[in-house]
Structures are given as structure tokens and as C-alpha cells.
């Protein structure tokens, strides 16, 4: 992979195991693309608020904010935002409800309040909606999407399909609120078959919860086809050559394994893989180690209290570093095999996580090398 292969892609999705520096790599890809003259928005949907620090912003909000990437000239623009599931959902309801009263009914519904804010899973639904909004935003040429850790990254891939399922649950919606569907052709037949299901469900949930749920689902009447269309649009976009998935890994065993699972899944479902990034690679020591006597003499001359002991520890450290560097090379080779022979871009270990735009620039440089 090289940054060149991501030029012109509308959406770049960074996925991978937790803790591999995915957010940093997403931001660095955004920066590298901005340097090619593109106007880029970087979105994190990770519940952790990491992007802000890497981009040198105090706090990221739901609205894209422009990042100061230094003297511009021919460079494009870098924008960043943090997915706010509730804000996205609220906006969605206000925009797409058939009328203001219907919007108000949804926003005030008790189930909605929990569903949109606190409940897990809504992040993934809303990420799809937010991605959809951003692809319609004329301010941005490209969108770089950071995702939650691997297991949940797969959830994200499934989110459009799950929304469609929810919509297909309309038979359930009708049986929960027969009034709303009374005029519907064939309703009687449907209701006759489903009332048993309703009765059983009620024994578990209690009548009130089921009634609330029915009202909640009924309030969405008129919005379902919109849900379905947008989910379908995102699904199509993510499967098209206008999208690219970038698999990010560190050299540790578990992330490389997860990267393999992701590559398999992406390939199986025909998502376009743009390439892979192997993050935090440690350099191989360039020289042969000194002998113990040689190092002891040098340290004695430098005034060490116990030069032999210090030499011993320094040699042990050098050996540990060499073993880690060897392991990192092995991991790169493993990831290359998992990718069917395409070598990942290697980003060196910068010791400290970049917390300023300058630090992010070094990562972007490494991506372009």
C-alpha cells in the first residue's frame, strides 16, 4: 500500500485490533491526503476520545473542526470530528420525520432517550448515518473513518444490514400498534398470525414496555424507507472502488491474528482492501554487539560505579531490542502472507504517541515513504 493508492477514494475505513494506534494512523492518513491537496474529514467512532489529542485539539465535537496543519500553500484541508451518536440520531429524526409533531413524539419517547444515548450498538448504527451525511457534505473530498476494535469493527460492517433487518421487523411494528396499521391491506391476516407472538412477548416484557415499544416504532412511520435507502447507499459505497479499507496492526501476535481475521472477512464480503499498515516497528540494531570486556572498559572510563554490572545490563538490553526487532520483522512477513503477498506500510516506533500535529506529521511522512 502507499498513500497514492488512497488518492481519489471517497471513503477510507481504518480497521484493526484495539491498541494498535488505529486512531493515530487514521489521523496521519488524513494529514497525508490533505498534503496532496485534498479536503479531508477524519471521523473517529471509537468511544475513546483519542483523536483530539493526536490532532492537538482540546476536544472534538460532532461538528467537523478544521485542524491547523501549518503553512498551507498548495495543501488541502484537514478536518476532524468525533461521532456523537445521540446528536446524529436527533438530527436524523428532525430531518426525516414527516412533520415536526412526529419528530417531537420520537425525541420525547422514553425508549428513544435510552436507545439514542446510552445503549451500546447505537454507535455503529449512527456511524453509518454520519458517514452518509458526510459523503453528502460538499466541504469534503475524502472521509477517513476510524473504527472501534476488531470485534466491533465487524459489527460496524454489519450495521447497514442490521438496520435493514430492523426495518423488516415492520410486521412486529404493526402487531405492536394495530391502530397505526388498521388501514393497511392484509393487516387482518398478518395480525391473526402474529397475535400469538405478541401475547407471548407480553408475558416476558410486561404490557407497558411492549406498549412503549409499539409507540416508539409507530412514531418512525414514514421514516423507514429512508433508513433503508441510506443503509443501502452506504453498503453500496463501501463495496465500490470509491472506498478503501486499510487494515492496521502492531507487531504483537494478537493484533496480527485479528488483522488476518479482518482481511479474510473483508475479502469474503468483497470490500475493497486498500492495504495494510504495520505500526510501531522497532529498528534492528545496526552493529554487532560489543564484547563484555570492551563495554566494561568504555563504561569504566566514563566513570560508572560498577562498570561490569552496567555493561551486563546494557548488553542484555541490546539483546532484548534485537529479539523484538526480529519479532517485528517476522510479524511484517506474516501480515504480508495474510495479505496475499502485498507488504504492509511500515511505520517506525516513535516511542511516544504523537500528541501534536508535528508528531502526526512524522507518522504521515512514514506512510508516504
Amino acid at each position, binding site marked *: 500500500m502507499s498513500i497514492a493508492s488512497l488518492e481519489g477514494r471517497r471513503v477510507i475505513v481504518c480497521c484493526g485490533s*484495539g491498541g494498535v494506534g488505529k486512531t493515530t494512523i487514521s489521523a496521519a492518513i488524513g494529514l497525508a491526503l490533505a498534503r496532496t491537496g485534498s479536503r479531508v474529514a477524519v471521523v473517529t467512532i471509537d468511544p475513546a476520545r483519542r483523536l483530539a489529542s493526536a490532532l492537538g485539539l482540546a476536544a472534538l465535537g460532532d461538528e467537523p473542526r478544521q485542524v491547523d496543519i501549518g503553512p498551507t500553500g498548495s495543501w488541502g484541508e484537514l478536518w476532524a470530528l468525533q461521532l456523537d451518536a445521540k446528536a446524529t440520531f436527533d438530527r436524523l429524526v428532525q430531518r426525516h420525520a414527516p412533520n415536526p409533531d412526529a419528530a417531537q413524539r420520537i425525541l420525547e419517547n422514553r*425508549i428513544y432517550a435510552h436507545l439514542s444515548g446510552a445503549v451500546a450498538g447505537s454507535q455503529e448504527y449512527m456511524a453509518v448515518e454520519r458517514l452518509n451525511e458526510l459523503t453528502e457534505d460538499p466541504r469534503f473530498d475524502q472521509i477517513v473513518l476510524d473504527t472501534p476494535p476488531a470485534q466491533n469493527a465487524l459489527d460496524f460492517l454489519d450495521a447497514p444490514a442490521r438496520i435493514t433487518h430492523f426495518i423488516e421487523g415492520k*410486521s412486529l411494528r404493526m402487531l405492536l400498534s394495530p391502530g397505526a396499521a388498521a388501514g393497511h391491506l392484509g393487516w387482518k391476516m398478518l395480525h391473526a398470525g402474529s397475535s400469538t407472538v405478541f401475547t407471548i412477548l407480553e408475558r416476558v416484557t410486561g404490557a407497558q414496555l411492549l406498549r412503549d415499544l409499539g409507540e416508539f416504532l409507530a412514531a418512525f412511520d414514514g421514516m423507514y424507507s429512508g433508513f433503508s435507502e441510506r443503509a443501502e447507499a452506504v453498503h453500496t459505497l463501501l463495496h465500490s472502488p470509491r472506498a478503501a479499507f486499510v487494515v492496521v496492526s502492531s507487531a504483537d501476535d494478537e493484533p496480527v491474528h485479528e488483522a488476518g481475521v479482518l482481511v479474510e472477512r473483508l475479502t469474503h464480503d468483497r470490500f475493497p482492501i486498500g492495504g495494510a499498515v504495520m505500526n510501531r516497528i522497532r529498528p534492528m540494531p545496526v552493529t554487532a554487539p560489543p564484547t563484555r570486556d570492551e563495554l566494561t572498559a*568504555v563504561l569504566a572510563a566514563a566513570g560508572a560505579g560498577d562498570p561490569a554490572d552496567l*555493561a551486563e545490563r546494557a548488553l542484555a538490553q541490546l539483546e532484548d531490542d534485537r529479539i523484538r526487532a526480529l519479532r517485528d520483522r517476522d510479524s511484517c512477513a506474516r501480515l504480508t502472507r495474510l495479505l496475499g503477498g502485498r507488504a504492509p506500510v511500515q511505520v517506525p516506533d516513535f516511542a511516544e504517541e504523537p500528541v501534536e500535529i508535528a508528531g502526526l506529521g512524522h507518522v504521515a511522512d512514514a506512510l508516504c515513504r
Partner: protein
Amino acid sequence: MTIPTLFDRRLVFVLGKGGVGKSVVAAALGTAWARAGLRVVIAEVANQHRLSDLFATRDVARNTPTELAPGLFGFSIDVDKSTEDYLASHIKVRPLVDLLVRSRAFHNFAAAAPGLPELVTLGKIWELAVAVEGGRPVWDKVVVDCPATGHGIALLQTAGNVSALASQGPVRDQAHRIEEVVKHPAATGIAIVARPEELPVAEAIEAVSTLRADDFPVAATIMNAMAPRRFWPEDAPALGRVGLENPRASAAVQAALQAHHHATLEHDHLIELATGTQTTPIVMPDLGPVPIDAAALAILADALSGTRHAVDAVRGS
């Protein structure tokens, strides 16, 4: 009365940012308890398959305890199966359960309803924690390997959300019972895991404050993968005086100086975790670039049990 330590709790949730080593900590904790003669189950959430890798055993079966080591069992929570179990326990009439489970409307709803998988998962954990057979608990200890922080916290909060949502009915009663156990200050403990890096520590501090504000029993913070300290401040001056004349010696000296610098940064992160959460973090060592296997887990279990009161608490219970 003293505050119970992590080792006194029966139900322990292991939570932290992705990649900090939650599964390894959960496995080490389970190993420590099992070696002290307790009957332990580690519950895995959301198809992680990490336990069978760590213990190099056959796959942990879904919703059935699988023995990983003597006295130590793995349990992989399957949401579909648990939903069915849950319905069966409430509806009691098997044909009705089958009717519901086979109904397409129900499946579409169950697959899409946000929050339902979390409630069912938490319900399964609760069942493990309260299971009794022949007058005594089936499990002495239940360890939960949670999803990454945001999703993990959402999992813990699910019972409270649902019991607030439904004002009456069996679901509400069940959610309320689960919430009581999950928030029990003596029986349950949440262990927040971090690595000595800036962002995992920041996330751990945020998680602790969120959980405390919501009355969840935070029992310990754990700093995983601290590099064992090899160099000390008194080594630095001599190392700093070595020039570049001998490139081989210089490479070794640079490696030492970098390791020293790195250890200092890690120590700063440890202090930050301690002050930011008002806890004394339990420290677990970095074992280097080796795969974590049973031998490695034994070392980590020792590191855990060596901490405050661990052994006594295990013996006392």
C-alpha cells in the same frame, strides 16, 4: 471494617481500552484463584475466542463451561442461545418458546434491538454468579473479560437502563435483580486495566470516574505490561558520558539510555494512573515478545497473588 480488595470479590469485571491485555489479566486472575483451590469460571463476551488461544485448549464451547486448567473453566457467552434460554425461563411452556424463536418477526427484532444483546449477556453473567447447587455456589469466582471500555461500560449500564425504562413486568424485575448484583459493593468488583502509555491511562481514569459516578464498585486498577526496570537514575551520568568513538559500545549504551528513558515515562504513567483514580494500581510485568501461554500465565498469576493480601484473602474465602 476494611474495604474488600479485588481478591475478596466473587464477581469481577475486567475492563479497559482495547489492546491493554484484558483477556490476559482475566486469565491470570482466574489462574491465581484456581491454583489456590477455588472453582473459577472466566466468561468471554462477544465471540472473542481468546481463552482457547491463551490456554491452548480446544475451543471454549458456547454457553457451556469448558475446563481450561484444573478448577478453571471458560464460558463463551452466545447471545442467540442466551436469548432463547432467557425466554424459556420466563415462558415455561416450551412450544410457545419454540414458536417465538422460530418467528421471523421476533428474529428481526431481536437482531436489531439495540441493548438486547447486552442485557442477555449480562443476564448470563448474573446467572453464573448466583448459580447454586446442593446449597453452595457453583462458582467460587466469576471473572468477566469485558469488551473495550466504551462498549464494556455500556454493557454494565444496560441493566440499569432497562430497569429504568420498563416501570413494571418480568423484564424490569429481572433487570433490577441483575443491577443489584452488578453494583453490589462487596460481592462485585470492577478491575480497570491500563498499559503504561498515555492514551490507555487517560481512558482508564475516565472510565473509573464514569463508573464511580454511576455507583459501580471499582475494586482495583491494574497496570499491565510494565517493563521490568533494568536501569536507574544513577546509571545515567556514566552512560551519558560515553562518546561515539566505539560504534559497537555506543549502540549498547544508546539501547540502555533509551530503555532508561522509556522506564521513566512508564513510571510517570503509573503515577498518573494512581493519582488520577485515587487507587494503588496492581502492577503486572511485561514478559517481552513471547506468546502468552500457561507458563507465562503462571508467572503473571504469581505477580497478581503477590500483591496486597491476595494470598490471605484467597485462603480466607
